């Protein structure tokens, strides 16, 4: 799964730390998701989407092999 959290983050000029705090997770988690090393749970994906004011599908995408 791919995502464009980093882009969305840049638009809202949030650091990884800021985003992590807003959705109360660790900075490592944001880092791992952005690096496509970790697939977040549905709850976390929804929280992230809600914060950016977008639909989950606008931030997370399936890629080939998923």
């Amino acid at each position, binding site marked *: 799964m791919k995502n464009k959290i*980093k882009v969305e983050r840049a638009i809202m000029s949030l650091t*990884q730390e800021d985003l*992590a705090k807003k959705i*109360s*997770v*660790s*900075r*490592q*988690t944001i*880092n*791992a*998701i*952005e*690096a496509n*090393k*970790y697939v*977040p*749970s549905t709850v*976390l994906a929804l929280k992230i989407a809600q914060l950016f004011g977008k639909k989950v599908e606008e931030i997370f995408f399936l890629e080939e092999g998923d």
Partner: protein
Amino acid sequence: MTSRLFLPNRYKRIGWFLLVPAAIAGIFLTITGFEADWLTTRVFAFFSEGVLEDGQYFTVIKTNVTNTLVGVIFIIGALMVSLSKEKHEDEFISDLRLSSLLWALWFNYVLLLLAFIFVYGLSFFNVMVYNMFTILIIFIIRFNYLLYKSSKPVPDEK
């Protein structure tokens, strides 16, 4: 993972303060075979058997507790470090924890298997002594390494 099975985050620091001195003392005791005389005391034992004595059940014996003390402090310290929550114990951290635990389980038993097959006689007693601590040690190293690695930003991160 159920958070009821974890200690609060502050215990991690206390754990390190117990674990590090106990580890140093443990290595020292193993190398030198040192036993502090003032730590010879009477203790209650479920079971006790000497080289030339018969086994005794539920008895009070006189023995040196240097190794016992260091071992107990080490295990308590290691458990505190392993089982304390991180500052943000979230789903990703749980994922790292589980993978480190599996990693430690594999590593520990592969090591033990090799020791079983290739170490014989009295030396095997040493293997058993080390094996009491290896799973905790491997878990702590692996988990903290993964935490460290995942806190480093990805290369193109601004």
